[in-house]
């Protein structure tokens, strides 16, 4: 992009401290009209804080924010929005019990005769939705829609007003490939209209595909600002984490060395649930990593939930060690040594207002029952062990989980299950929305656990990750298991082709 127009946003010397943490230190940031600007950094690097400083959620302790040549100090997100800065945050921040149209136009409803003009509201909402190619009924309740659609509604809400700056904090983390492509198309349209777009994503492919310029943060300080074309991935990652990619390669080697055999630890025979996933057969052996690949909505999570008893199957049966197991709920699965780490960390995983310690021991304590509390010393020992083993920060057992970054929250959730020493660990999107350093640590952990004999069912939207980690890959499409591939000899392209609907025959590993 040309350098000629003055930046629409300029932040100079921004510093911000929270109790005990210097979140931002003397950070400069520029955003030009008509560009997509990627904000890069690990979790906890200060990306979200910088965004929230721009959008009026936080006030900087020092430094100034200049918007279109004028000094501004927003004291609320509303003021920032009024000044033309629209934001879509990482977590969907909408009202689930309102309709889609109400969510899109909340606070700026078209009015007539002192009341809300609902027909006009639905029309306007439909227009905005059509602009981003989402065809849902504006009068339907938001909660009826899956999380991916809710995310698109959040984006529709952001672009429903004329904005000069659009901030997208991890907008793609719950979107599948098609939806991402659609989002990028919209982003390009808006960019060409002169909107400055600030984009945060952990998917490097996406960053390279869409962004024109990037700013890299590490530990709350500015590392550099580059044109995307000027910096290759390796040096970008090095800037973000200050480490090389050796760890990632080591994981790949480990996956190739493992060749687990033996009888199935967990076997599903015709297990299925109407409307969720068609009956499927699946064997998972001890020490094996089975990857689940498929688009969002292909039944990945649904399959996992059946294995864990989170939902009840209406056909087929589950065998553990060859003996049938009737799952009446998560408790019976846990008792059989099955653990399930949900993709929805906030909603189904962690108990945000409790401490790291309480979250870590929750599953084990629940299994013991309330009358047999874990002795304080055992608890402290476990907590200390896993804080260290998983490098959870802050290493303060009393810190509320709510205050941790995404990657650290994920590690706490993982640790909760590791404490129970599961025989089968189901990981649903364990690396989504977390930084590359934590991601590598979690992948490393998966291979280590498998080497120690734990069976792992690994679900991820990132096919590269699934292919790299898994010994066997189960491919799902349209709520049906369509193939089972040998992880060692399968490439991403082959999986993509199956997912995309190439009429590939059922292929089973011997």
């Amino acid at each position, binding site marked *: 992009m040309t350098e000629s127009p003055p930046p629409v946003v300029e932040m100079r010397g921004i510093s911000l401290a929270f109790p005990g943490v210097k979140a931002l230190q003397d950070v400069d940031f520029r955003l030009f009209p008509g560009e997509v600007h990627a904000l890069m950094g690990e979790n906890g690097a200060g990306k979200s804080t910088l965004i929230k400083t721009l959008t009026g959620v936080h006030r900087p302790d020092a430094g100034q924010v200049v918007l279109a040549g004028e000094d501004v*100090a927003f004291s609320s997100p509303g003021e920032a929005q009024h000044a033309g800065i629209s934001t879509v945050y990482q977590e969907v921040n909408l009202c689930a019990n309102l309709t889609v149209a109400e969510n899109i136009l909340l606070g700026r409803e078209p009015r007539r005769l002192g009341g809300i003009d609902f027909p006009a509201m639905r029309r306007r909402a439909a227009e905005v939705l059509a602009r981003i190619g989402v065809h849902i009924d504006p009068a339907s309740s938001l909660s009826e829609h899956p999380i991916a659609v809710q995310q698109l509604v959040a984006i529709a809400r952001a672009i429903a007003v004329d904005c000069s700056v659009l901030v997208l904090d991890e907008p793609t983390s719950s979107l599948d490939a098609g939806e991402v492509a659609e989002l990028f198309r919209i982003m390009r349209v808006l960019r060409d209209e002169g909107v400055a777009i600030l984009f945060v994503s952990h998917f490097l492919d996406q960053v390279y595909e869409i962004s024109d310029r990037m700013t890299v943060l590490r530990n709350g300080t500015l590392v550099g600002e580059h044109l995307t074309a000027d910096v290759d991935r390796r040096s970008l990652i090095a800037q973000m984490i200050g480490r090389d990619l050796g760890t990632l390669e080591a994981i790949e080697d480990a996956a190739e060395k493992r060749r687990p055999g033996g009888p199935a630890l967990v076997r599903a025979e015709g297990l299925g649930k109407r409307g969720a996933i068609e009956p499927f057969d699946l064997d998972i052996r001890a020490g094996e990593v089975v990857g689940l690949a498929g688009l969002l909505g292909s039944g990945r999570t649904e399959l996992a939930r059946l294995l864990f008893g989170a939902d009840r199957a209406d056909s087929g049966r589950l065998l553990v060690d060859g003996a049938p197991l009737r799952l009446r709920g*998560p408790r019976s699965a846990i008792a059989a040594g099955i653990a399930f780490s949900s993709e929805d960390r906030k*909603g189904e*995983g962690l108990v945000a*207002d409790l401490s790291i310690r309480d979250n870590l021991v929750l599953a084990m304590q*629940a299994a013991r029952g309330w009358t047999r509390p874990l002795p304080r010393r055992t608890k402290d020992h476990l907590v200390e062990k896993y804080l260290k083993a998983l490098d959870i920060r802050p290493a303060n057992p009393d810190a509320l989980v709510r205050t941790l970054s995404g990657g650290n929250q994920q590690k706490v959730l993982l640790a909760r299950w590791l404490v129970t020493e599961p025989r089968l660990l189901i990981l649903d999107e364990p690396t989504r929305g977390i930084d590359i350093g934590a991601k590598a640590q979690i992948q490393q952990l998966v291979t280590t656990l498998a080497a120690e004999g734990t069976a792992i069912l690994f679900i991820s939207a990132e096919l590269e990750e699934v292919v790299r980690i898994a010994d066997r890959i189960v491919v799902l499409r349209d709520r049906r298991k369509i193939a089972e591939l040998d992880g060692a000899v399968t490439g991403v392209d082959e999986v993509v082709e199956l997912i995309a609907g190439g009429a590939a025959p059922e292929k089973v590993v011997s």
Partner: protein
Amino acid sequence: MKNRLLWPLLALVALLLLNLAVTPSFFALRMQDGHLYGGLVDVLKNGAPTLLIALGMTLVIATRGIDLSVGAVAAIAGAVTCVHIGTSGSAATAFAGMALALVLCAVLGLWNGFLVAGLGIQPIIATLVLMTAGRGVAMLVTEGQIVTVNNTAYRQVGAGFVVLPVSILIALLVLGLVAFATRRTALGMLIEAVGVNPEASRLAGVRSRTIIWTVYVFAAVCAGIAGLMISSNVSAADANNAGLWIEMDAILAVVIGGTSLAGGRYSLTGTLIGALIIQTLTTTVYTIGVAPEVTLVFKAIVVIAVCLVQAPKARAALSFRKVAVPS
């Protein structure tokens, strides 16, 4: 934790000092026939039923619930016991009547738990059913009359003394038991987990339903004991007025004590302080001679003040540390 209780504690102290200023002998304690009397003892004694009910309410609120039926349950407990005792003066009959009443209360708690945990009805609606119907049940039991009894054993519960009034001892005993049962076992942590995030707790293997069920039964039993105290104190069962609006006082006590209505973290100590504030307030109204027609307004003002000083926003507005950064 400590900090959270600071403001309610200050409010309590301020109220007590106000009483002292008006009635110089307010803090005085005297022994008479082995019984302890004094203004502070009165506050504790009269506050015992509210404290008991607030304890049950604390755990219910911690699971994101609320129990509006406690007042009605208290009335039923008194009614059942008094009707069972009838004209009998024997201690055995009194104890049998009380046991019968408490078992019945536990059953009513099971009913609430069934509606909330079993059927998934919103707690405020589910317990509203019993709040309304419960008084009717109490009326049926007493056949619409105020049933008076003359039973020394029964009278001990609400009006007896073992140095201190028995009702205070009972309330403190229950407080101690709850504190022990929730903090020395894992129950407290599991209750909080269920309150903060029921689905995550279920997926972590917590028996969320059982826990919710348990707290409603506990709340009903607490209400039952409180009902026995109220009825025993006057040796009568008044289906219409016993424990009337006590659920509101109990909810207030819990909230003043710093437990959020949104569920999750709770504080039993906070509830104790909250209940004492509510009761001291009632006492204060009498001692400083607030006109009866403005009594409720006076109470409301104090409650609002206590709630405000706990609200982060109001506190930020009051403090001068945070000066706006000029642009």
